[in-house]
């Protein structure tokens, strides 16, 4: 559905160098800190940024070859881009209806009303939550097969975040073969939503794993300093100096449970994983 192969883009102070893939029927998450390269990777996937090297393929075609009809199959929400904020939902509805054959102006307005979005108010007067809901709704409203959602929950409170995530879950329930590529720097948002996760740091993908595997196989070992030297480190991905000794991240929880039964072990959460992968040493 979407594939980035050895995509390389050099900026003055940043290099994107990544490969990733999204399969139909899956929600794939891209997690990373602000400035890690999430938005740039998405822009490459949409043909907004041309890579120096490598290839972005969407629906089996190089992204620059996508036709208007192909683009009608894609729904996009960017955190920092959208329709002019001087427009109202009533202004936008006919624009969308003219661009997507499946969008009916009246139905779109009804949908917005159901989501409690004001139809005649300028977008710039919307709350952050309303704006986020509108952006996701615009991405979802035309039965897209591929959804690219860049930080759709950024800046939202817990309730608004849950509402936006519920919209995406509901969409996937109805459109089982759709694929969603979603980014966030809030890992817990993606933990419950995504089938697999990519972790990006400094423009590079440093990990790709199924969410189930992450939650069941990864763990944090709390190793006393005197034990650390003799610890079997073949399945330790990262370790970090702590006051009690070392925190070690492993992707073979069972191995250490059997071989080091005395060690304190915490089940890995995605947040901890990010912290370790970003801060720990190999």
């Amino acid at each position, binding site marked *: 559905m979407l594939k980035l192969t050895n995509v390389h883009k050099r900026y003055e102070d940043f290099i994107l160098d990544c490969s990733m893939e999204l399969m139909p029927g899956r929600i794939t998450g891209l997690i990373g800190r602000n400035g890690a390269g999430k938005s740039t990777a998405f*822009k490459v996937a*949409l*043909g*907004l*940024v*041309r890579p120096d090297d490598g290839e972005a393929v969407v629906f089996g075609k190089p992204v620059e070859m996508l036709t*208007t*009809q192909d*683009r*009608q199959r*894609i729904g*996009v929400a*960017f955190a*920092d*881009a*959208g*329709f*002019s*904020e*001087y*427009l109202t939902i009533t*202004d*936008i509805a*006919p*624009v*969308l209806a*003219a*661009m*997507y054959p499946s969008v009916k102006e009246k139905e779109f307005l009804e949908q917005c009303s159901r989501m409690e979005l004001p139809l005649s108010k300028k977008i710039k007067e919307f709350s952050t939550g309303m704006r986020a809901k509108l952006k996701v709704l615009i991405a979802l409203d035309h039965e897209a097969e591929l959804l*690219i959602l860049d930080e759709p929950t950024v800046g939202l409170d817990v309730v608004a975040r849950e509402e936006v995530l519920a919209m995406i879950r509901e969409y996937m329930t109805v459109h089982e073969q759709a694929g969603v590529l979603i980014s966030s720097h809030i890992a817990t948002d993606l933990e419950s939503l995504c089938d697999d996760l990519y972790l990006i740091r400094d423009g590079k993908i440093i990990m790709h794993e199924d969410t189930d595997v992450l939650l069941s196989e990864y763990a944090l070992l709390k190793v006393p300093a005197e034990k650390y030297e003799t610890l079997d480190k073949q399945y330790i991905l990262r370790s970090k100096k702590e006051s009690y000794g070392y925190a070690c991240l492993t992707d073979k929880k069972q191995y250490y449970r059997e071989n080091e039964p005395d060690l304190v072990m915490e089940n890995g959460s995605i947040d901890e994983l990010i912290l370790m992968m970003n801060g720990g040493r190999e």
Partner: protein
Amino acid sequence: MKGLLIKDYKLLMLQKKTFLLMLLIAICMNFAMQDNQGVIIGYLTFFAALMANTTLSYDEYGNGITFLLTLPVTRKTYVRSKYAGNLLLFLFFWLLGTLLEALIYALQGRILFRMETMVSVLAILPVSLIFVDFMIPLVLRFGQEKGKLVWAAVGGLIFAVIAVLNALSEAGRLEALKQMFGKMAQHGVIMTVCIIVLSLLGLAVSYGFSVKVMEKKIF
């Protein structure tokens, strides 16, 4: 492209008060300058072409173009919509200005649609087109703010070229050129065809440049 044109129309409608004010000023100017039929129509047409470009500012603001290009819109379609929107708007206001002028002429017992007056009325179209030819690629290339500065520089350059040509003409260095234009002017059809061809050529060059600018743009 229809969607983009609707969006631009909605954005222009945000400035409907400015358009009404512009129309009011045009009517007042018309009564104050009764013998300068072209000025009023020219004023309305130029103002419309200028206003059409404000949609580019709205698009620039808040990464609007980035978002628009995630919709079923290619870079070429975006450029095409800007030219179509600009041409439609200034043609509409040219027509409106002409009708308004004709109405006022009629109220004064005069006729606008005569050969000598219509030449100056029609001449506004290719001149306004030159404005569009420069403005769109400049704004796309440099952005609204820098684009205005570059446009001012281009305007200055055009003025300088005219001044140089004028000086050369007064010094009698352009006699051959003047003779050629003189001959062409005697043949109204040839002159009109030349103007139309040159206008279309200018538009094509401008459009080609704008597409190139957009194709190279990184968002």
